[in-house]
């Protein structure tokens, strides 16, 4: 049994995710699209909070909403003039896209539903078992089992590479 509040919260979040996703890919104004993406990302962050991963929710908002979407907006402003509408889609293209998306959805959803072991109720956990900041920090620096020191180091290299790559590509000369 869930509290009514959580039910409402769930419904709102789920609807938000779906609606903003649809809007993000269907709106003809590119800047709006970025905005709807932002909302969808917020909704996702809400899910994280709902499930008790506050740190993750924070990261989601900070990196995605604060970083990536801003990047999008900048680049949109750089490459298109405000008020530009993308032209209407050809129906053929729409159909093709729909076929792909629906097929994907059908196959995955069917396999998810048919697989009962994946469908589980929310396990009731004590506060202690949810990841705390401290624990997350410790795990990130741990080199043992379920320690993430190596990926942490590795991704730094990746980010460095992406910085170099981005600079090389974007450099004028």
């Amino acid at each position, binding site marked *: *049994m869930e509290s009514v509040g*959580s*039910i409402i919260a*769930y419904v709102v979040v*789920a609807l938000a*995710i*779906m609606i903003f*996703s*649809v809007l*993000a*890919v269907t709106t003809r104004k590119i800047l709006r*699209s*970025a905005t709807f*993406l932002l909302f969808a*990302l917020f909704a*996702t962050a809400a*899910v*994280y909070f709902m*499930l008790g*991963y506050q740190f*993750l929710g924070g*990261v*989601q908002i900070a*990196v*995605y909403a604060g*970083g990536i979407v801003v*990047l*999008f907006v900048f*680049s*949109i402003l*750089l*490459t*298109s003039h405000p008020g530009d509408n*993308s032209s209407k*889609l050809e129906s053929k293209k729409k159909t*093709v*896209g*729909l076929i792909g*998306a629906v097929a*994907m*959805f059908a196959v*995955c959803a069917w396999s*998810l539903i048919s697989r009962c072991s*994946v*469908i*589980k*109720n*929310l*396990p009731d*956990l004590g506060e202690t078992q949810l990841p705390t900041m401290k624990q*997350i920090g410790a795990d990130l620096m741990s080199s043992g089992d*379920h320690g*993430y020191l190596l*990926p942490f180091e590795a*991704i730094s290299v*990746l*980010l460095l590479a992406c910085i170099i790559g*981005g600079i090389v*590509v*974007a450099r004028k000369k």
Partner: protein
Amino acid sequence: MDFLNNFQLNSLMFLIPSLFMFCCGVYGFLTRRNMIAMLISLELMLNAVDMNFVVFNRFLCPAQMDGMFFTLFAIAIAAAETAVAIAIIINAYRIAKDIDVKDLTKMKF
């Protein structure tokens, strides 16, 4: 209110919206002609995946935090990807003065 009384959050309730989000991303990627819009669709897809990991982690195996950490790193990767992609797209825009993916079909067959 029986329905409400018996209502329990289960994993599917989160998986389906996330899947829906993923498929929206797919649709967008397949149909949008603006490359940045395509990137936006990709972000939706990646985000859906992240959500999947978190949901699975929380519902199925809360003991370890593999999923959460994966999501953490995936967000970083997504950021890096976006950065590089946007750099490349802007670069292409500088050359082609256009951002329509349809025009990038010089090489084919």
